[in-house]
């Protein structure tokens, strides 16, 4: 009993560490490719957490779809736009914004830590509100949920995809002429902007 819970705790700690490190890497690293690869680490950590919860199907989907397909797509876009174009955020760092963000972020962290460590039940009022899982595998349960309780939400996502396709087609159409409101952007180099619209 003790051994199992120790293994669980260790697995969680390691996976959580991978997740958080990856997430920090996504935000902090300068090179876009490194950002994308850090995202893989985070998604991989989440997959490990899924396995720890015996949700093997979700873990596999997580790796195949997110870490596999989506991040590869990100990398494609980054490569197409040019890897060496490192963005500089130096001009956008307002000291006040940093201070407020730091205080708020730190506050949320402290709040989360207090909620977590003050007691086992503090967060939810009960240890588990969902109850024990029914004795069937996760694939079955997901399928059931999708076709019964979440049938409407599932169908609704198709509408979301329709709009996404429509929007992508619309926005990628070539403009019928050069930009007409360059005078509203006096400080910027008009040529760079013009290229952006043409592209």
């Amino acid at each position, binding site marked *: 009993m003790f051994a199992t819970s120790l293994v669980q705790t260790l697995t969680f700690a390691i996976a959580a560490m991978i997740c958080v490190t990856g997430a920090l890497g996504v935000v902090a690293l300068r090179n876009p490719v490194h950002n994308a690869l850090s995202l893989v680490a985070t998604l991989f950590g989440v997959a490990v957490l899924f396995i720890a919860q015996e949700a093997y199907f979700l873990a596999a989907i997580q790796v195949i779809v997110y870490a596999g397909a989506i991040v590869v797509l990100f990398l494609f876009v980054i490569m197409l736009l040019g890897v060496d174009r490192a963005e500089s955020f130096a001009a956008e760092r307002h000291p006040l914004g940093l201070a407020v963000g730091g205080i708020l972020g730190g506050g949320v962290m402290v709040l989360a830590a207090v909620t977590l460590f003050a007691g086992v039940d*503090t967060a*939810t*009022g009960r240890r588990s509100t969902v109850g024990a899982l029914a004795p069937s595998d996760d694939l079955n349960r997901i399928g059931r949920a999708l076709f019964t309780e*979440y049938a*409407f939400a599932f169908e609704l996502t198709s*509408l979301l995809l329709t709009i996404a396709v429509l*929007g992508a087609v*619309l926005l990628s159409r070539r403009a019928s002429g050069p*930009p007409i*409101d360059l005078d509203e952007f006096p400080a910027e180099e008009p040529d760079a902007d013009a290229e952006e619209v043409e592209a």
Partner: protein
Amino acid sequence: MFATLLQATGAGDKLVTPEVPWSHLAPQLILVVGATVGVIAAAALRGRLRRSVGAVGAAVVAGAAIVSIIPLWHRVSNPAQGPISAVNGAIGVDRFSLFVTALLCAAVILASFTAEAYLQREGLDGPEFSLLLLLAAAGGSVMAGANDLIVMFIGIEVLSLAVYVLAAMHARRISSQESGLKYFLLGGFASAFLLYGIALTYGATGTTSLLRVQSFLAERVLTDDGLLLGGLALMLVGFAFKVGAVPFHMWTPDVYQGAPSPVTGFMAAAVKTAAFAGMLRVFVVGFASYADLWRPVVGALAIASLVVGAVMSVVQTNVKRMLAYSSIAHAGFVLLGVDAASAEGTAASLFYLAAYTAMALGTFAVVTVVGGSGDGAHTLDAYRGLGRRRPGLALAMSLFLLAQAGTPVTIGFLAKLGVIRAAIDADQWALAIVAMLTAVISTFMYLRIVVAMYFAESESESDDRGELRIPWGVGVTIGVAVIATLVLGVVPGPLEHLSDDALPVLVAVDGR
């Protein structure tokens, strides 16, 4: 072989898929099917359709949706049948959702008429614009009826994605692209907040269904509810962003300024309406038992929105930015109704949203015309001497602005009166007083535009900007908005009656 496989996976028992009461979902189905057919038609007949076909088509589809609401309204009003909760409790069909859907469809009709002239003038592609309006309305309608937080989230995303694209529609205006990108990035951020809030709420209550959340909270008193409070706070952030309440309003001026003018009108009217509908449904109904905890926060948001919206609008020189800040102040007024957390407050909020839909769409129709070719003339200077050049247009604009300021005999006055009365009945005297004071401040801003139109001479005596033409589409929008603003301002009975009846309810009745 399949049988043995099923046996092996323990799926022997039959899967009961939910019944879909198609007739109850008629408004949403009409919007979605209409938009889908439109997409196919637009792709097949590309370039061979006149631009006005898209606008008229969208208006017909939205009109059909409104017509389909009428029998449904009678059906759910009938005590023998009553409101239902369809598709396994995912979406509720009650008078609240029907009222909001009708409002959204009306916004689609007016916005697509304005857009028809706009697209013609700017040489933009036609039908997709109207189709995106229809899809956005479908998303908003789902939000108004969502009985499940996941459905609510997807509804918001459907609405938002469509509006992000609409905001970036003007390919030749960099500010339009900027507006779309800003709205998209910040909106995605806000959606993440909302989703995180939903996840925490699920963790605390074990369900995403508002109905079951409600009964879960009714059956027990949580001694420790940190997770639920965190969830509520994050969901509030998500909704506050969508309605443009301070301090989550940063995107509003930039996006309103850069987006094509008809889209700005639709954003102000429909997106706000749908977001408030979602907020009312989740907080006032779903988390009614937590009202004591979320009400002060909503009250603070209301005060901040009222003050910042009114004060900042006065110092702007761009009319679209002025109207953006004024829309923030209007959001503050609607928040008064939300904060009341009562049937009266909800009815007042709905009345306000209906009034604002008419006023905002009318105002931005005028802005579309004055913006001129290129949609760039939005400074106060562009309005100088409008009273002499286009007396009718200036008169309509003055009416809309005075209505927004809350002048008696217009619908704006009754709307403000309603939410303030609801706030006073809920013993929120401070809120009511702040609301009245800020209404005076924003009146100054509205009068600035009116004064510019009538009492300031045009910079150059000879109009080098040429004659402003009012195309028929814009004329229709302005006409309808003027009639709604005036007639409903004098005879508010019918609308008040509808909004009083349109209360959101969570019922477990599964319709067939």
